[in-house]
């Protein structure tokens, strides 16, 4: 989970003992014409099946999402009478109604909590990663172990004690509750992500800076952080995805309706507007769209973070 290469290019690695190609023998003596034809037919059938499967999955993935978007433009009667088809006309008003039913409020809350937690998480994680990689922090090994352990601890398990703790700290039912928890629970992952990247920056880079009279702090801000830009972007995107969609903490630690974030707010709205489908669909679309757009824009950074954080 830790370690090595910041480049997104997959590195060909190691020879396993099970070198499978050698085990297979090439025994293909004169294949008869009919079997060859049969084989060609089989290959064609398989290609067809492959394409069919891939296409079916595209439909299965996209159809519900398109249905959501289409339905958000329909009238209530249209949703019932013509659930499959395109909307007769674009009723943008549904979005306005969803907005005033709370979605705008939830949206703003989500933006606030998400951006604040991106800032704190990435900053604190880069900070500690630098300390661990470059400065000989006392008990560095033990601290690394604590971080690694933190990767495995689940929010659900901490729920009940946190309930009391946040109340004692007087941050229960405030943005701070979420910002602090989203930061604390994501520091392990983010630190490991950034650390893996920093390890590959040659020590000479910041040594040169220190020789030029930089303090470690200056070297960190002026040399290391700019060099880490790609991985910081990845880390920020993944944190955005996490914080925007987080549910358990937002459900338990926010009780004021006006402070709710989108995931919990939408659920609230669902029970309030039981029969007004198009407005609900509009709300869902508004909640889903930012992450989809962000993903489409930052795809490469997204996947780099994901696979560097997980696969190595």
């Amino acid at each position: 989970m830790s370690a090595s290469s910041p480049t997104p290019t997959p590195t060909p690695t190691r020879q396993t003992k099970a070198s499978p190609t050698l085990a297979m023998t090439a025994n293909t003596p004169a294949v008869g014409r009919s079997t060859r034809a049969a084989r060609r037919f089989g290959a064609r059938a398989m290609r067809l099946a492959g394409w069919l499967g891939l296409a079916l999955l595209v439909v299965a993935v996209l159809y519900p999402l398109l249905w959501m978007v289409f339905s958000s433009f329909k009238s209530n009667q249209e949703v019932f009478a013509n659930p499959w088809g395109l909307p007769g006309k674009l009723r943008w008003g549904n979005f306005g109604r969803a907005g005033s039913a709370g979605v705008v409020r939830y949206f703003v809350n989500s933006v606030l909590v998400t951006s604040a937690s991106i800032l704190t998480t990435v900053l604190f994680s880069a900070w500690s990663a630098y300390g661990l990689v470059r400065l000989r922090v006392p008990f560095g090994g033990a601290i690394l172990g604590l971080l690694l352990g933190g990767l495995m601890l689940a929010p659900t398990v901490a729920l009940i004690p946190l309930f009391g703790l946040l109340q004692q700290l007087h941050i229960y039912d405030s943005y701070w509750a979420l910002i602090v928890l989203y930061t604390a629970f994501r520091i392990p992952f983010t630190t490991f992500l950034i650390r893996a990247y920093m390890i590959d920056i040659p020590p000479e880079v910041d040594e040169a800076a220190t020789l030029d009279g930089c303090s470690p702090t200056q070297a960190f801000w002026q040399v290391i952080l700019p060099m880490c830009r790609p991985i910081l972007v990845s880390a920020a995107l993944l944190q955005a995805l996490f914080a925007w969609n987080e549910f358990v903490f937002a459900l338990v630690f926010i009780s004021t309706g006006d402070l709710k974030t989108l995931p919990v707010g939408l659920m609230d709205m669902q029970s309030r507007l039981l029969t007004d489908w198009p407005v609900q669909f509009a709300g869902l679309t508004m909640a889903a769209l930012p992450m989809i757009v962000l993903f489409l824009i930052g795809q490469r950074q997204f996947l780099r973070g994901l696979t560097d954080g997980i696969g190595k």
Partner: protein
Amino acid sequence: MSTTLMRWRSLAWVLPALVLLLVFVYYPIVDNLRLSLFSWNAFSVAPTFVGLDNYRTAFHDPIFWTALWNNTVFAVVSLVFQVGFSLVLAALLEEFVHQRLRGILRTIYFIPAVISITVAGILFSFLYNPEIGLVNRLLGAVGLESWQHSWLGEPSTAMGSIIAMSQWQSIGYTAILFVVGIQRIPKEFHEAAKVDGAGPIRRFFSVTVPMVREMTTLIIILTVSGAFLVFNEVMVMTAGGPSDSSQVLGTWLYRNAFLNDDMGYASAIATVIFVITLAIGAVQIVVSRRRRIQW
């Protein structure tokens, strides 16, 4: 001397991360163990020590067992889909589809993973709606009226429907991880196998599957621990109902803590979740350590 001082000063670098981690992650988890030995609720002045009573309660609580069973089913179904199906999907993408289209398909399949489970859950509860939901309409259109259900409203189908939604959401995510694993296989392996006359299916089983074993292990671990932490899906779609048929450990914990006001019992359930995920984590450590030695 001054170097020692500098070393200690460098602790400042890890301090914010460390403090947050200890206060908000480690302390609550340890405190949960203590709290699970008391009988208390949010309003009780003084919790009373009851020893292992809360665990005994769990042991005799049929809904606790339903929840544990549901988590297990979730894990097994997810394993089949996330490991089996996603691997086939990833192999198809990497070895079958040409470059251009490959990127587009990968993007499409991944999209469900970036929307929140709340959105996906509410969306699917519309799809599952007995009167106007698309699932029943589709069944009706092909003449399978007898298969129609009130999917989330019947105890026999609620959990399955939730699991199905979850597969829809996460298959692309797992496939991407497998894609990364497949991309790390040196090209020569497949080429050599091709020269040896191995067809695509043979190559899949003899080259791809053994070569992505590490990624498979990792995905198994992620999937299983994810399945025991399920919460959001169930909360949004059924909240554990009907008649507790789709209760999972997470929602049963929530219900006891914040609705039934039995914090002590809820803490005991949390401990059970903790022990399960810890065991899975331990397996992960053992496996990844073995891997590192191999390299």
